[in-house]
């Protein structure tokens, strides 16, 4: 018979005291909350066929060409503003006309 079993037999009283102490301690414990669900959060990802992506891209480019160019209209507005501002400056006499002529010849 192995030594451990022999020792366990001799220690029956001690071991049952240890077990009952542990059981009593376990009874006093309050379990922490456990928040679990069966459903897993899933990524909202759909497979899009490649032809749809290509078609969308072509449509986007076509619309870009067909639509009136916002950039040009914006540039016109800026030019008009600059012109008006230059006129105002000339009227107020705070612009050196020779510099203005030189600058316009450069551009």
């Amino acid at each position, binding site marked *: 018979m*192995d*030594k*451990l079993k022999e*020792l*366990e037999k001799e*220690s029956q009283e*001690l*071991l049952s*005291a*240890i*077990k009952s*102490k*542990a059981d009593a*301690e*376990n*009874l006093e*414990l309050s*379990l*922490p*909350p*456990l928040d*679990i*669900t*069966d459903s897993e959060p899933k990524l909202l990802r759909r497979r899009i066929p490649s032809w749809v992506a290509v078609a969308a891209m072509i449509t986007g480019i076509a619309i870009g060409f067909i639509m009136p160019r916002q950039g040009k209209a914006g540039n016109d507005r800026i030019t008009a503003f600059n012109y008006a501002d230059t006129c105002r400056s000339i009227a107020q006499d705070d612009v050196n006309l020779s510099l203005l002529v030189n600058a316009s010849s450069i551009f």
Partner: protein
Amino acid sequence: MRLTADTFRSLYLEHGPRAQGFFLRMTGYDRELARDLTQDLFMRLWSARESYDANRSFRTWMFAIAYNMLKNEYRRQMTIMEYVENVTKEEPLTETDHIEKQQRDQMLRSAIGNLPEPQKVVFLLRYEEELSITEIARVCGIPEGTVKSRLFSALTAVREYCRINEN
């Protein structure tokens, strides 16, 4: 077999207190830490439910992960000195308690608490959680012969401690 949330909840109610009690004694009666570790343990078990083999014991699986968590916990924060100090920290006795029983329990706590960590784990798993030698070997990842020799040394030490302190 796939573990559903309902099955897992009932496993939690059945085995949770044992796991928490195990953590409690292994951490030198740090109640907060034992609670946190228990919660963490079951969240890990739930996350790893795909790897659970229904043909094997849930307890063995649970204690194997619990033991790994404890090893990490020791590495992370506990020195041997803190560990021994925690073990001797006891709650005050109340007037209505049975003082004699409390003293005996305290002595047992200290006797087990003074064991070196490798002996203490196998001792608790065997005599408190009633795992078999084979299961303990699986949980700790050591040969059965080592489990037996550690148990023998641990039991001898606990008996000796109690013999000295009872007189």
